[in-house]
């Protein structure tokens, strides 16, 4: 009984710390309410935004949308989730674009990104932690 309570507390602390980490970076991850996901691993999130995966773990489709390269929110997201500054991620996409290999997710400003996720069942975006996410689902990022 005691052990299970401790486990419970530890789980809550770990979960909360992951949430705080994601939000202290200045962003939160939003998806359409039709998406059943409540959390996503850092690795899966990275694969979705680098277009290495087009689905969530449960098979739900994922259509990411990026903020502009100059956005401080994107910088924070790039460094913590993709492990590189947004300029390095941009250079990666330039390489892909001009050699005909791939194209990056569409870029939108924050309000357009929110509108996109609201209207697209598969939409996923990162937005500033203070953004109005009414009508969207905020999911947590786990390590």
């Amino acid at each position, binding site marked *: 009984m005691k052990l299970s309570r401790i486990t419970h507390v530890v789980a809550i602390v770990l979960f909360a710390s992951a949430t705080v980490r994601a939000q202290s970076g200045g962003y939160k991850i939003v998806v359409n309410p039709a998406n059943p996901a409540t959390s996503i691993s850092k690795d899966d999130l990275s694969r979705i935004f680098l277009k290495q995966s087009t689905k969530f773990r449960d098979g739900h489709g994922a259509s990411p949308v990026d903020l502009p390269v100059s956005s401080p929110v994107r910088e924070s997201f790039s460094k913590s989730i993709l492990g590189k500054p947004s300029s390095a991620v941009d250079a990666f996409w*330039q390489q892909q674009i001009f*050699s*005909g290999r791939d194209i990056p997710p569409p870029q939108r400003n924050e309000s357009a990104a929110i509108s996109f996720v609201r209207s697209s069942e598969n939409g996923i975006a990162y937005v500033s932690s203070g953004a109005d996410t009414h009508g969207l689902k905020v999911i947590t990022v786990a390590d």
Partner: protein
Amino acid sequence: MLRTLIKLLVCCACVSSVWAQDIKLFNQDVQVHGFASQGFVSTDGNNWLTMKTGDIGSGQFTDFGGNASIQLTDKFRIGAQIYDRDLGQLGKWHPQLDWAVASYKFTSWFGIRGGKVKTTMGLYNDTQDLDFLHTFALLPQSVYPTDLRDVTIAHVGGDVFGDVPLGKKGGTLSYTAYAGRRGDSPYGGYAYLIGSSFNRMGGLQYGGDLRWATPLKGMLVGISRLDEDIAAHFGEGTPGATTLKSKVDWTNQYYAQYTWKKLVVDSEYRHYSLDATINGGPEFQTNVRGWYMAGSYQIAKHVQLGSYYSHYAIAVPANLLIPAGNGFDHDKVLTARFDLNRFVNIKVEGHFMHGVGLPDDYPNGFYSVDNPQGLKPNTRALVVKTSFKF
């Protein structure tokens, strides 16, 4: 001159901020991108890269490209790019379809693409024209000779490709396998070397590339292989009509790159081996070996410094058309790159070259026809180049 350059840079910066937008077509995002570069090359003696670089220098060093791509579904994408250049006697402002691709990615580990596809080979083959991606104004000419760009740049055919994760401790393995046809432009290095009797050159290419992003963060190693069955025709319709046809024709390339914070170190080795027949009879052999070691470091937010050593060696045994010969070219390079903003940069680069390859027999930057006074063993070159992209 300086005023014009400044105006051009300001114009580019303005254009880029306006154009870096998606366009909607049938409710789909069409991504439109482009790039352009302008260089100036001055040498202290030999004319280089088919330009008249030896007197005051040459600014006949321009290229540009533009593309449009559309993601039709999560897995299916189409796009195309036009490319044009004017580099001395190469390109001559004849635009070409650089790539035009339909790509379908079934999963992250298996996809197919077809059309005119940029060939995956080594670290930079498919991005060699994209000046803004590189620290250097000229990539090491021992491995990426700009006068032989057409030879490896693209094939009309198809690829299979994918990324295979090897677990958290194994890194990621990326593969590409391809087959298609190569068609050389009449404005490339082979055509320039052969002269007006050049008719056409091209044929089958097939090969692959395997690269491993190792578990050591920033470390990439890889190997590429290209096999060809090529025919070159010149002097058609004349008594001296000649066809060179591949008998054994392959290229192996090995490469490694390490990125640590603001430091990038890379090295590549390429061996091209050709055994061809002349009009179906005698054989003609060529072996070209090139390698380089390069490093660059970002010393400030907008400034990168780089250096490389590039080593080129060619061996041609005696035969009917070409006398036996051994040639080499060693190039020591220092570069400074200044990024004015995300879209525009300027590079200043010094080359210290020793050797000229085999200028009468095989294209590698130096041509006897450009140097009628005879070639000197050493060449120093100053390259100034600016490029922009959107």
